[in-house]
């Protein structure tokens, strides 16, 4: 048995059939992590004792004939901006380097109720701001398919952990593409749910009107299992809600797929165009009908995003003041001195850039020209999707303009880094669900760089994306 090859589904089958115990599986997987993660750098911290304890509980449950749920005993990796009580939650920032979570995120509570096993916390760009994990205060995660390249970001650690088999599945968060972009670059499945489907309690907030937690998995089938485990209304997140949309296998086949003409522009890497074209052909062979649609305002999405997101970042990060979470600079004369010194020391360059940018677009005199204007164009982008979804059920596009880029390639020019999210940002602005699916199965070590394609759906229609995706991967 090779623990690196398991999916949530195959783990559950083997576990139920008593082919292995959850404890021995976790022990084997930690051996792989301890040798394999030196090169990849997917994890920031490991939860070895806690994982063994929980795996033992899952085994006990099985021995007692208790109900085994889809995630019982399944070893998962968690992005380090989600809180697991009693363990570090750094958000890859010096500011939270010594912070220990005081409570469980709602997604963690839900997974604990199923007796899932947490392997450790994964690397990200500081406070989830970036597209390569190069903004992590601790290290850069490497792409398992080519370690001279980035794993993508911000949830690069979770993507790389799943792609390299060092976790069966993982959770990430997606504000402008932070699940889908690294999933595409690492050749795994990544899903951003409809805004409000998954509780954000215990997710260290970046941009609250855009943030959503979602799954990283090896298959679309697993993606649905993990999503179903963490979704649902939470009284502690006023934006959360239950959704009840269902669709039958027969109805899936009748879904119409739209191709936005604005998304196939110059500047996309030929390998991406070829990959997405391959996916379209395969879906056509499966019998899906396609139609060209127009999303005329999506070309403004990057500008809108880089106004709204930093505005929310600057307010959300105001609470990191050197008083409540950690204090690195002790030698201060006054309260003001404590703020300015700790925030200078605790925040990395990209975080500072976004806090200052957000402060700028919210300041009087600029508010109308930037922040208010961006919110209006955000409305137009959402209406573009509404109009397109009158004609089609699902929209297909690339996930990223290029395959995984080299470590260091884009760090000097923030704007070129921001451009790697142009295809993923619109779904966050509109609030709709979107999934990144590998064009084909990519084997680590083959030398090939993965390409993904994106399916975007109507609000709360995750089932449409899973349904098409499952047919795609079964082919």
């Amino acid at each position, binding site marked *: 048995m090779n623990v690196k090859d398991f999916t949530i589904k195959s783990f559950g089958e083997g576990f139920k059939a008593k082919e292995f115990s959850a404890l021995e599986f976790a022990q084997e997987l930690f051996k792989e992590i301890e040798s394999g993660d030196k090169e990849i750098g997917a994890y920031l911290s490991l939860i070895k004792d806690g994982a063994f304890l929980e795996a033992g509980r899952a085994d006990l449950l099985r021995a007692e004939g208790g109900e085994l749920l889809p995630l019982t005993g399944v070893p998962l990796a968690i992005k380090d901006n989600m809180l697991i009580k009693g363990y570090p939650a750094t958000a890859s920032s010096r500011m939270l380097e010594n912070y220990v979570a005081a409570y469980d995120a709602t997604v963690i509570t839900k997974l604990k109720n199923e007796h899932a096993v947490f392997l450790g916390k994964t690397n990200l760009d500081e406070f989830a701001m970036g597209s390569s994990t190069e903004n992590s205060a601790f290290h850069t995660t490497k792409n398992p398919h080519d370690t001279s390249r980035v794993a993508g970001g911000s949830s690069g650690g979770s993507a790389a952990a799943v792609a390299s088999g060092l976790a069966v599945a993982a959770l990430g968060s997606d504000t402008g593409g932070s699940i889908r972009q690294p999933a595409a670059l690492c050749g795994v499945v990544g899903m951003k749910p409809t805004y*409000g489907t998954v509780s954000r309690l215990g997710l260290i907030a970046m941009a609250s009107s855009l943030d959503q937690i979602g799954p990283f998995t090896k298959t679309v089938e697993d993606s649905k299992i993990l999503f179903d485990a963490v979704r649902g209304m939470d009284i502690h997140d006023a934006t959360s809600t239950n959704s009840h949309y269902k669709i039958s296998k027969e109805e899936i086949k009748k879904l119409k797929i739209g191709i936005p003409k604005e998304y196939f522009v110059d500047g996309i890497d030929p390998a991406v165009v070829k990959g997405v074209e391959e996916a379209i052909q395969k879906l056509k062979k499966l019998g899906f009908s396609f139609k060209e649609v127009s999303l005329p305002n999506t070309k403004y999405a990057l500008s809108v995003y880089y106004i709204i997101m930093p505005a929310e970042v600057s307010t959300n990060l105001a609470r990191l003041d050197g008083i409540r979470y950690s204090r690195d600079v002790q030698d201060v004369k006054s309260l003001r001195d404590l703020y300015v010194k700790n925030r200078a020391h605790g925040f990395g360059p990209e975080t500072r850039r976004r*806090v200052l940018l957000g402060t700028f677009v919210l300041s009087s005199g600029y508010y109308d020209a930037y922040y208010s204007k961006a919110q209006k164009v955000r409305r137009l982008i959402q209406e573009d999707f509404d109009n397109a979804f009158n004609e089609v059920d699902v929209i297909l596009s690339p996930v990223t303009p290029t395959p995984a880029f080299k470590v260091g390639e884009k760090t000097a020019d923030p704007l070129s880094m921001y451009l790697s999210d142009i295809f993923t940002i619109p779904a966050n602005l509109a*609030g709709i669900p979107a999934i990144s699916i590998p064009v084909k199965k990519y084997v680590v070590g083959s030398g090939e760089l993965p390409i993904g394609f994106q399916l975007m759906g109507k609000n709360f229609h995750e089932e449409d994306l899973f349904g098409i995706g499952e047919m795609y991967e079964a082919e």
Partner: protein
Amino acid sequence: MISKSEVKHLAELSRIELTDEEEERLAHDLGKILDHFAELKEVDTEKVSPLTGGALIMNALRDDSDSRGRIENDMAVEEFPDKAGGLLKVPPVFS
């Protein structure tokens, strides 16, 4: 375009101490990013109402009660870098 003195002002508002070099760098970076935003001027938004949040739900209410419990409160206090008697301790406001 954004001047170095504007960056200084933003840093003051954001309570982040910057070096001279960092101010230069940020003036350059922010200037370039703000130039990119100029494209929004061409969009007619006169009759458009702003989209102010991500959720479609309105008036999500819950009971005004201590639903999170005392234990978590104590753990949060435990994480404070400086504390006294279960309270947060800070340096003097005026030096």
